[in-house]
């Protein structure tokens, strides 16, 4: 196991080799690995010839990305980059797994694409045991995507611009579906700023604390004509709302399904009654629709699911009975006698190829948007800790022996040069704002690299510091790379 992470995290301690890259140098690493695989003659030539296109252009593109160049950009010794390239290429099976360290950048999509290139070079895709695995932070992030919670997709990842697909939904739903993709959340805030978005209905999200540059986010939310929030807790966003719908908890108070990272749809069962006035999401939505003049019948989760199965081919074979019997099924599962799909992209290995070959993409390393300079010389990266979820709405109410609280992690060397000790309050400033936060000394960091978790926005709002630059292709913001300055507090 190799771990690539600017910090030597607890997971990295389990790795056979940890590569501590500089924040935002992921593409430099990928391209250097690719060049080394090519130069060492470790390309899976058969796969590349049969299943991909654009190899020659790609090889020429990464030619300047030598190990030495990679070391210069990433900070990682060339020898370690070489080991990664060789071990990955030679492994009988290998997976690339990633989470937000790859995607919370202004060039998130390019980061992912650079990893796909490596899988194409080596044939570590479309085979049992190999693949590309974005790991989800919560149990049903994949399920949200499955159900069409994306601005450009209908349930089952059918494109809203696909007339045939859209028509199918329109017939079943008896309404018109817009043919244009909607906004993702970052675009919505921009639209609010432009005065094009006046009202919001937020379900299970806490943007007042989770958006980058929270000062701006709160200001924009306050400026809305009308805000409705549906959540299981009275979050900071909910506290700002005109109307709050208390919702039942997904995994214990409602019936339904969730989809895991490996595309496995599993049954969720109700174990207890929701407290107080809280209702199942389906009930809330049905009541709201009927208030708005529709005549929706009360439906069970299974009835809603069965309707989805008629509309989403990849889910068509997944009856509740089968999900129950088999302990879940992996999509695509188009018919009731289909066993589900263990891994994706097997078609890449079929002969003849049923589709166009997979294309290599040419991506370049570019540094993070927020540059380091004499005024802001330290790189702040943000992330999660083991015991907490996101803004702490779901986890902050419980005690945990491993909770670190709102702190800034800095290396012993950084602490020495700042002349600060564990627990001492310091001032952290970025080009957008300043916060005060206690220091925690952590060996997993180095001079010039500091870390904060995002879980305690009520105590210390790290997103006061982060910038809201975002990836135009995916809509994710660059939470991972902020330039900051740390000052020892003087006088008390």
């Amino acid at each position, binding site marked *: *196991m190799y771990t690539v992470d600017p910090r*030597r995290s607890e997971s*990295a*301690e*389990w*790795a*056979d*080799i*940890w*590569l*501590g*890259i500089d924040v935002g140098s992921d593409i430099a690493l990928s391209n250097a690995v690719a060049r080394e695989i090519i130069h060492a003659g470790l390309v899976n030539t058969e796969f590349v010839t049969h299943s991909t296109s654009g190899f020659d252009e790609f090889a020429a593109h990464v030619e300047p990305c030598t190990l030495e160049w990679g070391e210069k950009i*990433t*900070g*990682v*010794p060339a020898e*370690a980059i070489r080991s990664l390239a060789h071990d990955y290429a030679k492994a009988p099976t290998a997976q690339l797994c990633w989470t937000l360290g790859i995607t919370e950048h202004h060039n998130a999509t390019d980061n992912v694409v650079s990893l796909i290139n490596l899988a194409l070079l080596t044939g570590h895709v479309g085979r049992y045991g190999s693949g590309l695995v974005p790991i989800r932070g919560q149990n049903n992030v994949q399920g949200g995507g499955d159900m069409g919670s994306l601005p450009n997709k209908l349930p089952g990842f059918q494109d809203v611009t696909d007339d045939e697909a859209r028509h199918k939904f329109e017939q079943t739903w008896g309404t018109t579906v817009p043919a244009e993709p909607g906004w993702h959340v970052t675009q919505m805030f921009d639209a609010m700023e432009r005065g094009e978005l006046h009202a919001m209905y937020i379900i299970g999200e806490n943007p007042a604390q989770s958006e980058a540059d929270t000062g701006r986010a709160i200001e924009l939310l306050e400026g809305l004509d009308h805000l409705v929030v549906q959540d299981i807790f009275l979050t900071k966003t909910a506290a700002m709302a005109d109307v709050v719908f208390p919702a039942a908890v997904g995994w214990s108070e409602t019936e339904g399904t969730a989809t895991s990272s490996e595309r496995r749809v599993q049954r969720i069962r109700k174990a207890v009654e929701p407290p107080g006035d809280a209702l199942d999401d389906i009930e809330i939505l049905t009541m709201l629709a009927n208030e708005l003049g529709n005549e929706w019948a009360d439906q069970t989760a299974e009835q809603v699911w069965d309707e989805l199965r008629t509309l989403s081919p990849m889910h068509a074979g997944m009856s509740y009975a089968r999900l129950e019997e088999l302990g879940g099924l992996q999509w695509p599962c188009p018919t009731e006698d289909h066993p589900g799909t263990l891994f994706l992209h097997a078609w890449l290995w079929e002969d003849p190829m049923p589709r166009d070959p997979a294309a290599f993409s040419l991506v370049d390393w570019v540094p993070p948007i927020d540059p380091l300079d004499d005024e802001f010389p330290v790189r702040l990266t943000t992330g999660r800790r083991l015991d907490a979820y996101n803004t702490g709405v779901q986890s902050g109410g419980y005690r945990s022996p491993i909770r670190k609280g709102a702190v800034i992690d800095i290396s012993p*060397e950084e602490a020495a040069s700042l002349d600060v000790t564990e627990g001492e309050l310091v001032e952290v400033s970025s080009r957008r704002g300043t916060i005060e936060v206690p220091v925690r000394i952590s*060996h997993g960091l*180095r*001079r010039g690299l500091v870390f904060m978790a995002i879980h305690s926005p009520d105590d210390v709002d790290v997103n006061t510091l982060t910038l809201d630059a975002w990836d135009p292709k995916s809509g994710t913001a660059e939470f991972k790379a902020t330039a900051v300055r740390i000052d020892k507090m003087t006088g008390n």
Partner: protein
Amino acid sequence: MLGLPDSVWAGADKRSPADDHVAYGGFHASQDRRHLLLPTLHAVQDDIGWVSHGALNYISQRVPVSPAEAFGVATFYDLIATEQAPPRVAHVCDDIACKAAGVDRLLDDLSDRLGDAGTVVNGGMWKRSPCLGQCEKGSAAFVQVAGAQNVVLAPVSVEQVVDVLSVATPASSVAPTPRSDTTLLNIATTSLEDFRAAGGYHALAHAITIGPGGVRDHIDTSGLRGRGGAAFPAGIKWNAVAAEDGQKYVICNADESEPGTFKDRVLMEANPFGLIEALTIAGFAVGATVGYIYIRGEYPSAHSRLSAALIEARSAGFLGNDLLGSGFEFDIEVRRGAGAYICGEETALFNSIEGFRGEPRQKPPFPTQAGLFGRPTLINNVESLMNVPSIVLGGGEAFASIGTGDSKGPKLFCLSGNVVNPGVFEVPFGATTRELIDLAGGADGDIAAVLIGGAAGSFIGEDDLDVPLTFEDTRALNIGLGSGVVLVFNTETDMADIVSRIAEFFAHESCGLCVPCRVGTVRQKETLLSIRFGDGDIVGKLELLSDLDEVLREASICGLGQAASVAVQSALELGLIGVPE
């Protein structure tokens, strides 16, 4: 042992520029070096007297293994202290053999002089201990000394314990063990020269002449059965391991911890080279290049003699790359246990060497297929191996002509408790309990019961004293021969106290891995205590003991739990306890 740390991640003080951006280690490194965890814990314990959290964290970083795992291993063993302990800790035996010999009086006096067990006085502390394998002496103390050699005092007096706790570098004081000097104990020397003069290493030379298959044929025809308690035919094991390919191991199980057993200690102390030669022959016969001797931590003398003998044997070319010019490569490492009876169970012993908690594994796979480090492993007890040289030299058939139908060769018995001359006695298989007691000078007083096989064995009464102590005859009696314990109790003995002590032993030594044993042994102990000291309702308590017996025997995953109620039930059947007044 661990070498110098090569980066800040492995425990170095200062960060190198490379440390900022790369670290090697993780799970695979942990697999490579994890077997050094217990030796490292021992090293800190030996030097400091306890393993602080800081030391444990550092060890975790250096091995590497997660701190929680290291803590789990450290706390598994009685002889590794994870809370601050004084530099000298005397573990004083309060187990059954010493009880029979009247050790309770000594323990009472110790409490009067030094306070209850666990009280720190003058930089020292005394504790009660399970059997220390010095049973023939009637009392014993094993003393852990920080920064110096651990010592044994046997027999021991109150004055000696008081003295030893206040002396920085105490010396051992151990009375010799009365013993037979026939076949198995006919050589007694710690000098390689004397060992060779007495015929040592002739067997290895002959083994090399007849080849591995020839050795195994002799073992097979000898009918040798394991002397550790399970009585498994050695030939089957040896051939099974020989049939496997790749890296293989041979192990000598010297974790002799069965209460009332001390023969292996006597063998190792008397003839360390003999054991080394025997294990070398075993390695040659099955195709192993590495051998381990796993010796219980309470045997410092046997450990130091074996360690010294290994060095001498190695420098004389009896271990190493090319033994006696045969091209055969073999070496042996000694590993020390740390106070855990369960580690005598073969798969728990593997886990202990590998640096895990000494918990038994599910079988199958059997050790011959997947033993130490997952490789085919031959594991035999000390006494079993000590028979090997004479089998190789004299031939399997000659060995098979000694003894009875299913029990071949000479056998050592450990006589202790209420006999006139306790000690180790060798007889050809076929001797009865009464004959053995006579060898030890007869019983001291009138016999109330004799415990055969140790805490995991059974009590027999006067009626069964003339049954030959062979595998087949004891099986017919529905008891086990075990490790050769013959522990005699006279009518003066408080048998309820003895049986409770056995139950307490199992409750203490249960590793906690499986529920039947973890819970069952504790409930058995509690129930016996409540029969002893409680009120009326004895019938219900006897029923509970019977239920516990069934659960322990049927559902425990290893021999410890399966045997934990056997002695208790035999005591009930004989009416030694549980008779309404």
